[in-house]
């Protein structure tokens, strides 16, 4: 199709260029904005000479090494636990009715923002939380909440489990979509017919291939968990906190000198995340080696009932915990008087909702404007890229895929701080467009990944028929391809909006606190402990993306009421 690039063909060439600039430009600028002050060079603040003293000084902050350790541990452990639970469930239940039943819960849970999930989980497991209440006083004998440090524990266990809950739906969905590309059923049949047990068949015949496709998303989970801020503020230890939380405190310190220290800390954060990734990579090699040895040993491993039961139970516990966390948010948001050991409040009231409707409104409008604008930019850019790729017969290379994951694998806090340093310098922080463009960096990978497959798998014969009817390429795109892709496009928009709404750091750092969204407001409530108010904010935060997904499923039917294709 050498002669296909016509009409819009030329401006379309800009799409991949813009895409690469959008993905890497802010990253490079941001890293420069962190590295220069970290090495003491920041002329506006009087740093005119390169020095290692700040990189050294920051390590003397109280608890610094513990913070670093915690970041690495949380990054690796969250990812390991989440991955083990997901793949054990896949191995145990692939193709069974249980698999279908449980996986129906996964997509809606994926769209729950991190902060809301963390709040719900805290309300569930706190000493005065729902679980203790449900078992008190009849089983525990407690008439007062026990004096346990469950939330914000110094070892970060609550944070770890909270993150695992939230990362499992993500890894689950990625594994599900990867499974659809590697004929899992045939692979299982081959191994099963050679006499291998069900679970072991999955591990030897499916997992190695599946993991290759999971690798980049997994790295993104490691990077995210090792540098997470919002969940760490809600569930994580306080003194000393995880490194990213410490960084945020230094970044917000009124003492300007602390900017150098914060930048130096961000460099250590890059190192911590890198170390987490490297240890994971070593683990991969180790597991690969042991796996190969076990595979060729010829052991059939048919006795897997206990494994299947355990794996299914784990996944069921995860889903039940997550669902209960959402319910308890709703319960608290309209709870009346609620004395300790009672399982439910003595009454329900919407008075707090009504009182706070006004103050919730602005952050909701801010969040939605940012989300819709940044998502629309991403969808337009993605479609332009994919159409350009189609018209020019370009094959997307693995290297390009790595660029797409770049903003997800470099810790947000490390380069966003650098960008904000530049923006403050030019007085651009705290306004709508910088925040929106910062969101596009993180929305773009998700929108692209979700649209690419449906766009590329489109039946090209429809387009050939349309062209041979004498219609221009642009008309083919706008009146055949895009309308027929309405469903995946709307889903990508809903996903983009969900990702944007959940963003905490870009909104906070680039918005300089002057553009409050529902997410920044909700996280800010964490320290206060007003459960009813937190319930309201977290629930609104959860409902916004949910509305997007529901709309995405209803709009095609409403727009084309008598078309079977959209049902």
């Amino acid at each position, binding site marked *: *199709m*050498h*002669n*296909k690039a*016509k009409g819009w063909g030329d401006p379309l060439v800009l799409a991949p260029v813009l895409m690469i600039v959008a993905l890497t430009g802010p990253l490079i600028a941001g890293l420069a904005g962190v590295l220069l002050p970290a090495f003491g060079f920041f002329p506006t603040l009087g740093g005119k000479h390169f020095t290692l003293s700040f990189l050294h000084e920051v390590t003397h902050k109280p608890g610094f090494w513990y913070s670093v350790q915690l970041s690495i541990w949380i990054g690796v452990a969250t990812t390991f636990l989440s991955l083990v639970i997901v793949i054990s469930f896949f191995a145990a239940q692939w193709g069974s009715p249980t698999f279908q039943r449980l996986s129906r819960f996964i997509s809606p849970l994926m769209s729950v923002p991190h902060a809301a999930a963390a709040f719900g989980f805290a309300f569930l497991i706190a000493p005065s939380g729902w679980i203790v209440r449900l078992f008190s006083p009849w089983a525990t004998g407690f008439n007062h909440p026990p004096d346990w440090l469950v939330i914000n524990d110094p070892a970060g266990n609550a944070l770890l489990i909270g993150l695992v809950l939230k990362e499992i739906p993500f890894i689950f969905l990625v594994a599900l979509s990867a499974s659809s590309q590697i004929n899992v059923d045939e692979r299982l049949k081959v191994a099963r017919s050679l006499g291998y047990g069900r679970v072991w068949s999955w591990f030897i015949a499916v997992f190695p291939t599946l993991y290759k496709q999971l690798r980049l998303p997994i790295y993104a989970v490691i990077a995210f968990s090792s540098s997470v801020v919002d969940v760490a503020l809600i569930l994580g230890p306080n003194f000393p906190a995880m490194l990213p939380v410490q960084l945020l405190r230094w970044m917000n310190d009124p003492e300007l000198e602390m900017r150098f220290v914060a930048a130096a800390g961000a460099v250590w954060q890059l190192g911590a995340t890198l170390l987490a990734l490297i240890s994971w990579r070593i683990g991969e090699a180790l597991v690969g080696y042991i796996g190969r040895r076990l595979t060729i040993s010829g052991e059939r491993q048919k006795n897997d009932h206990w494994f299947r039961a355990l794996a299914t139970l784990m996944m069921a516990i995860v889903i039940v915990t997550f669902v209960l966390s959402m319910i308890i948010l709703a319960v608290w948001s309209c709870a009346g008087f609620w004395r300790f050991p009672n399982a439910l409040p003595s009454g329900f009231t919407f008075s707090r909702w009504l009182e706070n409707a006004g103050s919730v409104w602005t952050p909701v409008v801010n969040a939605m404007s940012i989300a819709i604008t940044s998502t629309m930019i991403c969808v337009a850019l993605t479609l332009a890229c994919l159409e350009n790729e189609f018209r020019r*017969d370009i094959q997307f290379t693995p290297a390009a895929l790595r660029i797409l994951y770049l903003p997800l694998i470099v810790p947000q806090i490390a380069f966003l701080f650098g960008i904000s340093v530049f923006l403050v310098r030019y007085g651009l922080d705290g306004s709508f467009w910088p925040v929106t463009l910062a969101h596009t960096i993180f929305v773009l990978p998700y929108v692209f990944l979700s649209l690419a497959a449906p766009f590329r798998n489109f*039946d090209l*014969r*429809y387009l*050939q*028929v*349309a*062209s*041979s*009817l*004498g*219609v*221009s*390429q642009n008309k083919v795109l706008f*009146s*055949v391809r895009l*309308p*027929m892709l*309405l469903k995946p496009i709307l889903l990508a928009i809903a996903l983009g909006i969900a990702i944007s709404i959940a963003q905490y750091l870009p909104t906070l750092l680039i918005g300089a606190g002057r553009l409050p969204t529902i997410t920044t407001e909700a996280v800010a409530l964490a320290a206060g402990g007003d459960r009813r108010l937190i319930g309201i904010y977290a629930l609104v935060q959860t409902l916004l993306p949910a509305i997007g997904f529901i709309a995405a499923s209803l709009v095609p039917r409403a727009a*084309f009421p*008598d*078309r*079977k*294709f*959209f049902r």
Partner: protein
Amino acid sequence: MKDALCIENVCLFHDGAKLLDLNLDIQPGEVLTVMGPSGSGKSSLLNLISGFLPPSFSFTGRVVLDGVDITQADPADRKVGLMFQDPLLFPHLSVEDNLMFGLPATGSKEERCAKVRAALDAVNMVELGHRDPLTLSGGQQSRIALLRVLLSEPKALLLDEPFSALDSGLRGKVRDFVFNQAKAKKLPTILVTHDQLDADHSGGKIITL
């Protein structure tokens, strides 16, 4: 040659290996049947003529339609109608809108609507105009797909196994419908098929690749 579809000394290569070497003239109203095992280049020949040849293919020679060399023309400008095994009616448009899509953009909206109605009326399917294409039977869909192609005023017709998805009862009817329409419009037609019956009914030359 006026009105004819001429394949002049066309050699088709896939990754450097020669697939076919053809020199053919198809006269208006003539149906040429191309048969052969899969991978022999049948569909690639149609792609070459309609302008959709993937870049892993290369060729020499010319394709001339109605005296015009269309070898390098944009697919949209070739005036070559295509029909596939599936009718490929656009599922987001009604039957009438599908036909409107095929009709060239000349004349007022009313004139174009009238043309579409007349085309449906001529084949006794006017009551299907407002239907969702996915609710039509397979045979109806194929006939509408052919009408859509014919309304775009092509100068040649390429049929890529257009009957193989239909069951045997319907198949004969749709086949006669297509051949009669092609002959009535005096279109040079190439039919690619696996089915000897299709070939026998075409009433024209048969070549095997």
